[in-house]
Each structure stands twice: as C-alpha cells, then as structure tokens.
C-alpha cells in the first residue's frame, strides 16, 4: 500500500477514434481530439463531475485532428493549437470554435507531433509552436507571424526524407534561449539550438522514436525522455555534453513488451514519468540521479553519468494502444488518457507526494 496506485476514476466510451487529449489549464476540463468514421475531425470538451465526465462542448471540422497543445497560449485565453491529418496547423479559441484564430498549411503531410512553449506562465520569451510531419520537416511557428514559419528544420536537398514522428521544446530558461528536439522513424534524434540556429547534437537509437519530452521546458536542459518502438525507453542526462562519448549519457529500459507510444513527465515532479504502451498498459517510473552526475573521462573532459529508473507501478487499463495521455497541471496525480478502443479515461495516481 505504500506504492503509488493508479486508479481509474471515470471512463467514457465514444463513437470516434481518439488521438489526443489535453487538460485545459486552470480547470477541471479536458479536450479530446480525434476523427469520426466519416473522416471529419472532432474536438470535444469534457468536464469532471462527481465520478463522471460530462460533455461540455463539441465541434466537427473538415479534417481529422492528430495532436494538440496548449503550450503556447496564455492562461486566460487558452488557445488550443492543433495539427491535423492534412498538415494544417490551427489555433482555436475554445470559447469560439467556429473559426480558428490562426491557420496555416504547415506541412504537405500529416502532422505527427506538436508542442508549444512560452505560454501558460511557464518560462519567458515568445510563444512558439513546433510541428513535426511525415514530410520529414520540423517547423517552428510564432502565432504572431502568419504563413511563414520562424524556423524550418529539414533534410538537405539530396538526402532521403524520413518521417518526423516526435518534436518537443526545451531549454527555454530565458527569453532568448530555446531548443527543439525531433525524433524520426529511423531512430534519429536531433537537437537544435534556436538561438544560434544550429544543430547541437544528434544520435540514433536504432528504433523509431515515438515520443520525446524534456522533463521541464523552462529550465536549462536536464533530462530528455525518448520512447521508441520495440519497447525501449531511453532517458538522457542533458547537463553534460561530451561528443567523444556520443553526446549525452543515457539509461535504457525495456518495458511494455510492445511499442512505447508515449512518455510524459509529471508536471509537479520532474523525476516521475508515465509511459504508455501499445498493449494498453501504463507504467509509472521514477528516475534517480547517480551520486555524481559528472565524471572525468580518459582525456580528462567532463562527461555525464546516467542515473537509474525504477518502476513504481503499472496497470493495464485497455487492450488497445494508448494514443494520448496528459497529466493535469493543477492537480497532482490526475491524468486523462485516450486509447484506440475509443474510450477516454480519467485516472488518479495516489501517493505521488511521498515519493
């Protein structure tokens, strides 16, 4: 009973495919994105109400939605940025869902991943959105600039394009610095510095990277979580870069016995994260730092020392892959998840404050 428990609080079965879910900041509501069988996109807003979820708002749009984020919106306005199957990036005001407040044809193909930074009172600097698409490019957008992205990260002319499966922001500890990390289907992970517009680090984990996340966006890079195919979870220690030894130190774990679709850090504690697998299982992990994070290598240069991750709890709530998972930024342990069995589940993890 001392271990954290993962308890199902409420679940609801829906009639369309769900791809992503996100909590609306400062509320007990969450938004669910997906697509109907007829090919149109669906946005639904649900609210927690005494053991059940109640539908508050819904709308149907032309194209199916793949992913969304609140990362670049202000707390008061709560604008949801979504990427759809057609490569369009839209920003919606949830109070007025008829028209998007920003719309651009970001990519030629489906947007696989989206992330936002600079909003929600986290970090300083301009609000920006990054999108990763199957057309191989990763683009950074500023909602104040129409049509043209602020930065484009794409392979050179003659090289083969690999699907970009994941993208995330990090290292945004002041208004100038920012980093974008992108993961590809061949296992490439590339880290770009947006201030100097250069490639900072790249590596290959041999399996397609499904999800990338820094433990915190608004601090100097600390840890990077990369989940891949073939049930691998990698955690990189991003504080010390030593290119002779492959850049950053990492620790790898095998779990889930299937593709690890998602890895999300707990907003209230950056050492705790949840990974979601293709078999519908959720694993709760904790990262422990080594006694010395930095060691001297053969040449006397500093190199990072990876820590260890320890499984705290696991639960199998579904039989289908879990496509979306989000921790609530307001309540410790509250989370919402969606899976391909067309259900949305609200779960509570207990005893997280005593880890």
């Amino acid at each position, binding site marked *: 009973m001392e271990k954290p428990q993962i308890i199902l*609080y409420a679940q609801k079965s829906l009639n369309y495919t769900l791809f992503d879910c996100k909590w609306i900041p*400062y*509320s007990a509501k969450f938004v669910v994105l997906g697509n109907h069988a007829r090919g149109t996109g669906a946005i639904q807003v649900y609210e927690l109400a005494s053991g059940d979820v109640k539908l508050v708002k819904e709308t149907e749009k032309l194209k199916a939605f793949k992913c969304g984020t609140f990362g670049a919106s*202000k707390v008061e306005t709560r604008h949801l940025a979504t990427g759809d199957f057609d490569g369009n990036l839209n920003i919606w005001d949830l109070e007025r869902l008829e028209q998007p407040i920003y719309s651009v044809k970001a990519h030629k193909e489906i947007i696989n991943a989206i992330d936002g930074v600079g909003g929600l009172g986290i970090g300083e600097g301009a609000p920006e959105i990054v999108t990763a698409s199957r057309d191989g490019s990763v683009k950074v957008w500023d909602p*104040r*600039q129409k049509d043209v992205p602020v930065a484009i990260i794409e392979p050179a002319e003659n090289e083969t394009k690999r699907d970009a499966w994941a993208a995330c922001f990090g290292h945004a500890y002041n208004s100038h610095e920012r980093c974008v990390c992108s993961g590809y289907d061949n296992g490439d992970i590339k880290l770009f510095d947006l201030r100097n517009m250069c490639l900072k680090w790249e590596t290959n984990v041999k399996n397609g990277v499904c999800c990338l996340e820094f433990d915190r966006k608004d601090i100097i890079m600390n840890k990077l979580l990369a989940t891949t195919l073939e049930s691998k979870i990698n955690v990189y220690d991003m504080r010390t870069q030593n290119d002779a030894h492959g850049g950053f130190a990492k620790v790898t774990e095998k779990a889930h016995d299937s593709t690890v679709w998602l890895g999300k850090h707990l907003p209230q504690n950056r050492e705790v994260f949840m990974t979601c697998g293709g078999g519908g299982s959720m694993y709760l992990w904790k990262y422990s730092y080594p006694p010395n994070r930095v060691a001297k290598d053969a040449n006397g240069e500093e190199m990072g020392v990876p820590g260890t991750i320890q499984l705290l709890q696991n639960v199998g709530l579904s039989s289908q892959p879990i496509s979306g998972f989000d921790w609530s930024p307001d309540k410790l342990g509250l989370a919402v998840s969606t899976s391909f069995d067309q259900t949305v589940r609200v779960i*509570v993890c207990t005893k997280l404050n005593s880890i």
Partner: protein
Amino acid sequence: MSDYEKKMIELQFQMKENQTYMHDCFEDLESWTKDIKEKEKKILEEPNSIKNSNKGLPPIRAIATTKKKKKKTKKDQVETSQKQKKLASYDYRAWDKIDVDKMCQEIDDKKTSSSEYTTDEEWEEEQRKVKAEWEKERGNQFFKDNMLNEAINCYTQAIQLDPLNAVYPGNRAMCLLKQEKYGAAEADCTLAIELDSKYAKAYHRRGTARFKLGKFEEAKKDYEMLLKLEPNSKLAQTELNKLEQLVESRNLVFPVFKKEEEKSQKPLRRILIEEINDDSIERNEIKRNLDEINQKIVLTDKDESLFSLNDKKQELEVINEKLENVDLKEIEPKPDFKKIDKPENIMKINVNKAIPEAPNNGYQFKKDWQLLNDNIESLAKYFKKISPEDYPKLFLNGLESDHLSKILVIFSEYFLSDSEIDLFKCLKYLSSVKRFQTQFMFLTSNDKKAIEKLMNHIKSLSERYQKNELEDLIKKYQF
C-alpha cells in the same frame, strides 16, 4: 487462530483500508474540482484587453532559411534590370532619352522596401535594431516601476545592440540621474549628444547633472543650448532662471578667515545692546501669562479620574472653572502685516512699495490690484496711470463689486481734487465697462454717496462738456 483465518482478517482489513483510501481520494478530487471551477470563472471574467495583449513579448525570431531564398530573388531582379538598362557609351541618342530622376526614384523605391536586403549584414543589422528597441521598451517599463538597476542593464544591452542610437544612452542617463550618480549621468549625456547634437532631452539631463555637480557655468551653457533647441519650452526657461538665481545668490558675503598672526591685536570692547523692537518684550509677557495659566490649571489626582471616556461633560466644567480664575494681562497684538486694523502704522511701512506700471490686460491689473490692495493711496496712484480708454479692455470680464466700490472711493477722494485727471472721461469709460449696470444695482450706501459727490462735481463743470454727453453720463449714474 489458524494462519488461514489470520490471513483472511488481514485481507479484510486491507480491503477496508483500500476502500477508505479510495473514498478519501475521490472526495479530495471532488473538492478540488469545485475549487478549480471557481478559479476558472474568475479567470474567464477578466476583461478582454488583458487577454489580447501581445506587448512585452520579444520580437519574432529570425528566419534562417527563407532569408537565403530572398537573397536569391533579389539578385535575380538586379541582374535582369541591369541587362535591360545597360546602354552603350556611344549610343548618344539613348543617353539623351534617359530620365535620371526616374532612375533615382527607382533606386530609392528599392531601398525603402524593407523586406529586401542585398546582404546578410544589412538584414542582421535590422534584426539587431529591432532587438535594441525591444530592450529599450523593457528598460522603460523597469524605469516606470522604479527598478533602476534592471532598467540600466536593459539600456546597456540596447546600446550594445545598436550603438548609434542616441536615445539609449539618454535614457540610461535619466536612470543614473535618479540614482544620483551625476558623474556617470553626465558622461552618458555627453555620449548621447555626440550621437545626436540636437537631442534636447540630453542637454536638459546633462544640465541637471552638471548643476548637481556644482558645474554651474557649464550647466548654464547646456540650458542655453536647450533653449535654443526648444525656444517655446517653459521648462527650459524656468530651469535657466533657477540657475541664474542660484548663481546670483552665491554672491554672498562670506566670513573672513584670518590667520592668528594677521588678526588684530587690539583689546575687545564691550558694547551695550539696546532692544528697540517690541516683539521680545511682548514675547516675555506672553510667556508669563502662559506660566500663570499652567499654574492655575494644575491637575490633581481627583481631576485625572475625570479624564475617563464617560464623563466628558464634567471634565469640561472643571477646566472651565479653572480658566475663570486666571486673568490674563492685556497684550497689544503684534503688528500683523496682513490685517488692516491699524491703517496709520501700515501706511508708514508700505509707503516704499513700488507702484507698478499701467497694466496691459485684466490679469495684470488684478495682480497689481491685489498687491496694492491695502493701501488706498498707492492704489489711487496706480489707477491714475491707467488711461480711461483702457478701462473696457482691462475689465473684459466685467467689474467686480469690491473693485467698483474702491474705484468710486478713489474717484471721489483722490481724483476729485486732482486737476490733472479728466474725471469726465474716467466716468464715461467706466460706465461703458461690461456688467457695469448690474454691478451698479448692488452698490452700498457709501458708494452711492461717493457717486453723488462725483455727479455734483461733474455738474459744476458743465461748461466744459457738451450738454447731451453730460446728460447721458448723469443718466447712467442715476439710480
């Protein structure tokens, strides 16, 4: 109990615990849900203006790749245009047909389109300028919030990004002035002036800095420069005046300091001091009276008990009793220059006041009138200076009743006996002043007597004036 039973009991216990735990968990979640809903309501009630402000955000990030693309297009354009317009040097007819002005205009147009840059450096410079401006805005915000060190840092960064803009060192100088770091402020102002010799604010701030440093001459020069740049600025003029005053006041008599040897060897004499002034004598008397009062109103223990919140009435009675026992010596009041109770004394004192020149407008008149208000004679002298034709202009907004009474007094007392003044004219123009008729209705009996006197005097001079004019005047002053 067998192990099995023990285990059963343990299991039951655990299940109960689980259940209670779950229950607590869910209740906690419920209460949280309520709280967060309230919070959300509050946030949503915020006015829209707060929601939609994009100010204070850093400028949009630089575009890396598209920049290069733009460079290519620009080059193409330039090449094609050059191909079109290259004229052979021997083709005189073509040269004759060239419209130089048009070509110049085209070049100017190309330059002004801000999205096209021929080189990377130009574009980078533009970016840096935008960043510098943003730093300046941040600095301004810090300055408003009185966070001067942060403001200075912002301005320093702005200067680094764009060293040719005079506004940034000027603003930094303002912060330094506020921090009383006058030397550094002066240096920054000098820098700003070097970048822009017509930057008025920099001169102003440097003037202030120099003033505080004691460099009065140089401060004066700065203010003069400021006046040259902004001749209409009242601020510049007042500052200059202040400075001049201070410089003048420094021409004081300073005590003489002599060395021991140089000092006079003569013995010191004792001189008797006679007090002529009444003040000190009165002051002593007042003091004596106060002492008497204090002696009589001595609080005994019994009285102190009265100073409770309930019996205020009784308190007052006791104090009144004690006051009656004290009889104060009559003291003559100090001659208060503001009160007009002793006309003779005051007359003697004020006879030296300068009488101002004739006023040009109503405001000047009012001011001068107030200045001389206590002394009728000087008022009369002042009024004499004003020509009668100017009365309507001076009293543009109409006469005031006390003005009118005083004027009538002046007329009847002083002007009557004065042969130089044409009383008729004075009266005529006075009557043509706005609102004269209305004021006329509010005259006191004294005023009416004065008017009677004046009328009688006028009638006696009937030979000098035309009959109908005289009649008109008398009509106007009739009641």
